[in-house]
């Protein structure tokens, strides 16, 4: 019987869930809201030696194969390519309340760079 081929776990670079729970890290005494937030993070292989946006053409792939990229070149890294902001309500060091918009707090997209 055909060997049950388990779904090959997609090890490629992608966004993974990561909920940052401020009460779990003991920050909920000074962060009033939100109680936590979906931060996500990027992780996975970048199998192709070219950054995603370069290997979008067959020509690039052929050139790469033909010219057999120098293996000393470090592999592309799996990093956030798009981030978004969250607003936070917190008490600062002087017990005063601050509402602030923090940029680049949520990973919206990942890619090989």
């Amino acid at each position: 019987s055909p060997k049950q081929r388990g779904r090959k776990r997609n090890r490629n670079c992608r966004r993974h869930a990561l909920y940052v729970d401020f009460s779990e890290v003991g920050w909920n005494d000074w962060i009033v809201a939100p109680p936590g937030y979906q931060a996500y993070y990027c992780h996975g292989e970048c199998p192709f030696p070219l950054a995603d946006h370069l290997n979008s053409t067959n020509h690039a792939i052929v050139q790469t194969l033909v010219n057999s990229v120098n293996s000393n070149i470090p592999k592309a890294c799996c990093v956030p390519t798009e981030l978004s902001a969250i607003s936070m309500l917190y008490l600062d060091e002087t017990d005063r309340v601050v509402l602030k918009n923090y940029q680049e707090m949520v990973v919206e997209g990942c890619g090989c760079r």
Partner: protein
Amino acid sequence: ESNHASLIPEEGKKKVSGHHPGQSHELLRDFEATLLHMFGLQRRPRPSRSAVVPQYLLDLYRLQSGEADEAGAQEVSFEYPERSTSRANTVRAFHHEEHMEQVPSDGPYTTGTPLRFLFNLSSIPEDELLSTAELRLYRKQIEEASSEDAGNEGLHRINVYEVLKPPRPGQLITRLLDTRLVRHNTSNWESFDVSPAVLRWTRDRLPNHGLAVEVLHLNRTPRHQDKHVRISRSLHQAPGEDWDQLRPLLVTFGHDGKGHPLTRRTKR
């Protein structure tokens, strides 16, 4: 260590757990320091028990983050201040120094004399450029004994001044910033634009002698003088009132050049 681990994704934990405990503690402390620095904080805040979160800022957060739009969310009693927040990524709230509110005078406090509100704005970072500031005063409905009183009797004039010089007994040099005529048959928060004064104290580094607020009951017999607008703890001992939530509040809107303004977000 177990507390902080959730800030680091699974892969990161494996790396961290490989170290001996002392080192991972240090790593996690560094990680926390990095996050606090990103929040613009020198050290981790340790709020005291007396810290008060004004309902206004909670409501601003809920409106801005889209939480207020969720089904069953608690109603918010004011419009989101689009104009102020469209140029700001930081909103700060301040209460005045109560021990300095009585203006030095020759005799005892007489009703209707202005009270002085001094706000300590030193926690505003230098790189945060303020664009607007509002003073919020709460006024509590007065049930009229008789209906004929509900006419012009219920009018109160609220004047908000900037104090220009250090107060001297019997002498308060001020400049009018905003004024409003209100009727005491409703309860409501009134917002006064005090941007010119606050920007002079912060952006232009001019001395901050505070604001002065005068409330006058416009009536031949001002029976309700000092009873409608909540401006001083000493004037209002109504049972069941939470003074910390009703006291005057200065709200500043500023931008530190990092990131986008606090425009309203629709809940994802």
